[in-house]
């Protein structure tokens, strides 16, 4: 399947999806939040069997989070970046874990680092951070240096 065929298939199959062919073998698909999982199902049925990562970007100025699902088709050698945006206030979306089982772990990490809630993910428990009490640390409005100052301080040692 060529990039152009895939573009047509996605735009017919998913509501309000816009697709651009960036270069040979790379597609950027932008879908609204509600269409993300159906786009994943459609792409998986067309041979995109490898979800290599889910990444999250904090667009602080626009008040949005952007989730990017990276999909790879071994048969067609095409990389699809499926992008969707969530509001920064109370970010919620539907989990992709019924489609790709390992998405559970990616979502768990995004939940911990950005505070995005994935409805239907059964395991949004603390993951890499140990007994974290502060706000999600990868958000851009999290003041790392202030947090370090407050938590670890800069007291000289007791010795000598």
């Amino acid at each position, binding site marked *: 399947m060529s990039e152009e065929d895939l573009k047509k298939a996605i735009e017919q199959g998913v509501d309000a999806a816009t697709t651009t062919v960036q270069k040979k073998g790379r597609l950027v698909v932008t879908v609204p939040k509600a269409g993300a999982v159906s786009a994943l199902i459609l792409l998986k049925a067309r041979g995109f069997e490898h979800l290599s990562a889910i990444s999250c970007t904090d667009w602080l100025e626009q008040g949005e989070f952007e989730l990017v699902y990276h999909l790879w088709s071994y048969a067609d050698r095409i990389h699809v970046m499926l992008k969707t945006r969530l509001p920064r206030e109370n970010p919620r979306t539907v989990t992709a874990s019924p489609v790709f089982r390992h998405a559970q772990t990616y979502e768990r990490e995004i*939940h*911990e680092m950005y*505070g995005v*809630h994935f409805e239907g993910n059964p395991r*949004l*428990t*603390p993951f890499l*951070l*140990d*007994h*974290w*009490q*502060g706000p*999600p*640390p990868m958000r851009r409005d*999290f003041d*790392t*240096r202030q*947090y*370090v100052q407050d*938590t*670890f301080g*800069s*007291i000289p*040692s*007791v*010795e000598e």
Partner: protein
Amino acid sequence: MDREEILKMLKSPANWGQKYSLWVVYFCTGCGVIEIPPVITSRWDAERFGVLPMATPRQGNLFLITGYVSLKTLGAIIRTYDQMPDPKYVVGFGSCPVNGGMYWDSYNTIKHLDKYLPVDGWIAGCMPRPEAIFMAVVHLWQMIDKGIATGYKRYKENYGYYERNQREILPHLAKFGRVETTAGRNS
């Protein structure tokens, strides 16, 4: 063995024995541990110095903190250190345990190891070469000879200070007897 060594040995046989059998707890905290395999294997052969990796803290008396210490690791380090028998020595390896190193503004790594454990010596550098480990071992020998490698005694004397600092950032440690309450936070 030269004559001075005999005098030292007669003066304090225990010190003499301890200093030539520094057994390192094989506990890998960060990237610094990449220097340990060449040190303990044939290229540099730490056994010349009596330094051996040990599988359990009950058998070790030297604790190398190799690299950055995240909060999760600090809990394990404190737990391991508490299990080691006296006398025990802690050496911070690399710049991260000294002052945070390149993680100086990271939200999840500690910046000053000596706030939480008594440290007998530091090896600066990122990474320190294996030779630096041997220099540290020789320094530690001299300190043991002079009787100033007393971190484990300071830990007991100033336990209130160390415990306060430990409790401040790790209130959930098992030794503080807290019940696990944070499941499902953030959700």
